[in-house]
């Protein structure tokens, strides 16, 4: 038996002006290029959960163009994020019309199961763990069920945990490899459409399992740069330190997402630098405390806001750069937010910044609230869930103000001069000795 695992890949922006502007801005293009080629860790996990006697073939969507003849399999399994779900459905429909049964799974399918079921012989909600082996077994017996529930907890424990099939990536030109050490995040931000939506609580891999995965993954690429596909890696500082001590001797360069509280712990910062962590991405969301009101149910980010500048400086002085993320269009923001974000980025010395627009992904509390308040521009806009296209009416500005403010800010933040200024700032940090705790600093890049 042969199963085709098809990943929806690539990055997207719909609004024409923004797409055109985006390709001309160096800061924007570079990050896009770096991430556009990440593999589907979800499907590598599905592959690992497949019984070894079944052949699996891993494909990414650019390998499956509509004009090409379909590559036939006994069963096709497609992963899903919201922005490309209509392309995934179209592909599923083509396969089913050709007589190949289709399974859909992943984040979007979990958030919108009934919609997805119309395009599949079977759907899997939540993680593939706890569902996929049963599904394959049923399929072989000819009794595939229309829906399977994967695990929302205990995903990283035997017998359901597996090491993703990184070997399937061998020979492909990835400049980054993803590994996941945790799922979920207790902050529960209203807008979040990430792994929090497929878990019932924060799940973390035991340190030894996380390290072992990295060891396996590093065997498949020549110059691996690792990106942890986590939402908040260093929530648990004790776990974090043990993980970093294990990681340091591997001599890697890597990136992850976490929250600003890493700055509270000097030892953690030293270990981060020593383990080769080059950048952490932190959701700062808004430059002022007022702008952060109500983002997470505990108001944690608002309480942290006045420490942002000091925290960024402290983290970066350890040689770990910060990629600060800002969200435009939050209810408490007025048009003043655009220059405020620009000023904050300049003042903070952030080496990288990511500016996106508030996006009501279907299935999130934000979507439900904006729908209730009659503020969605359309009820179905999945291909516009790109984090750059505006899909709702902001509270304290018009849609046009939000769109043009965002374009203005993009020009301010991602132009040549600003990009060069941030690069220079990083070089000066390096020259001043940032990251000297890294024993490889100065002798290995």
């Amino acid at each position, binding site marked *: 038996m042969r199963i085709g695992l098809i990943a929806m890949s690539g990055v997207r922006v719909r609004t024409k002006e923004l797409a055109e502007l985006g390709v001309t801005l160096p800061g924007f293009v570079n990050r896009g290029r770096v991430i556009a080629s990440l593999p589907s860790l979800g499907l590598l996990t599905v592959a690992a959960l497949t019984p070894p006697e079944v052949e699996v073939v891993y494909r990414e969507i650019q390998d499956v163009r509509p004009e090409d003849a379909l590559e036939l399999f006994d069963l096709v399994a497609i992963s899903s994020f919201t922005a490309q779900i209509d392309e995934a459905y179209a592909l599923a429909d083509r396969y089913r019309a050709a007589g190949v049964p289709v399974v859909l799974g992943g984040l979007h399918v979990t958030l919108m199961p009934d919609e997805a079921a119309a395009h599949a012989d079977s759907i899997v909600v939540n993680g593939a763990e706890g569902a996929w082996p049963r599904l394959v077994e049923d399929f072989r017996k000819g009794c595939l069920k229309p829906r399977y529930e994967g695990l929302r907890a205990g995903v990283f424990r035997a017998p359901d945990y597996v090491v993703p099939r990184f070997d399937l990536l061998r020979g492909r030109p990835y400049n980054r490899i993803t590994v996941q050490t945790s799922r979920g995040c207790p902050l529960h931000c209203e807008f979040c459409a990430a792994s929090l939506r497929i878990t019932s609580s924060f799940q973390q891999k035991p340190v030894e399992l996380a390290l072992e995965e990295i060891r396996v993954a590093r065997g498949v690429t020549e110059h691996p740069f690792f990106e942890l596909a986590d939402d908040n890696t260093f929530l648990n500082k004790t776990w974090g330190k043990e993980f970093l001590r294990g990681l340091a001797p591997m001599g890697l360069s890597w990136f992850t997402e976490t929250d600003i509280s890493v700055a509270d712990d000097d030892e953690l910062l030293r270990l981060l630098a020593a383990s080769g962590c080059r950048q952490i991405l932190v959701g700062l969301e808004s430059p002022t405390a007022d702008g952060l009101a109500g983002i997470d149910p505990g108001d944690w980010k608002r309480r942290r806001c006045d420490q942002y500048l000091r925290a960024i400086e402290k983290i970066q002085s350890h040689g770990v750069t910060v990629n600060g993320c800002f969200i435009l269009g939050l209810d408490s923001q007025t048009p003043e937010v655009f220059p405020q974000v620009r000023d904050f980025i300049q003042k903070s010395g952030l080496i990288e910044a990511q500016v996106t627009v508030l996006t009501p992904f279907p299935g999130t509390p934000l979507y439900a609230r904006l729908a209730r308040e009659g503020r969605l521009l359309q009820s179905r806009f999945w291909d516009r869930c790109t984090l750059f296209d505006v899909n709702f009416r902001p509270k304290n500005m018009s849609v046009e103000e939000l769109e043009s403010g965002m374009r203005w800010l993009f020009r301010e933040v991602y132009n040549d001069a600003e990009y060069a*200024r941030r690069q*220079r700032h990083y070089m000066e940090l390096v020259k001043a000795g940032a990251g000297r705790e890294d024993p490889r600093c100065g002798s290995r890049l």
Partner: protein
Amino acid sequence: MKPNWNGANIESELRGILAECCRRDLSQVGDDADLVRELGLDSLAMLRLLAEVEMRLEVRFPDSELTRLRTLRQFAAAIRSGGGDLLPGDSSGPSTALPEGRTP
């Protein structure tokens, strides 16, 4: 005294620095080879390399050139063209102090 980088020895000097930083034998890497691809450097690693070169050769690359410098020949040309020949505070030439608005 600051070294004079008008001579022909820059490429070999640079090759030495790179070999040491990357712990690699660079004899096969040509002057026009794209270092990012050849050495598998990410964008931050490239900047660390530039910083290392600036420190060791006591030069400063123009900020506007940083993204464009990808080969040994380009490094050398930028140094020779004088864009990078003076450090801030060096009284013998025009100031290359950091751009205004830079964070402390």
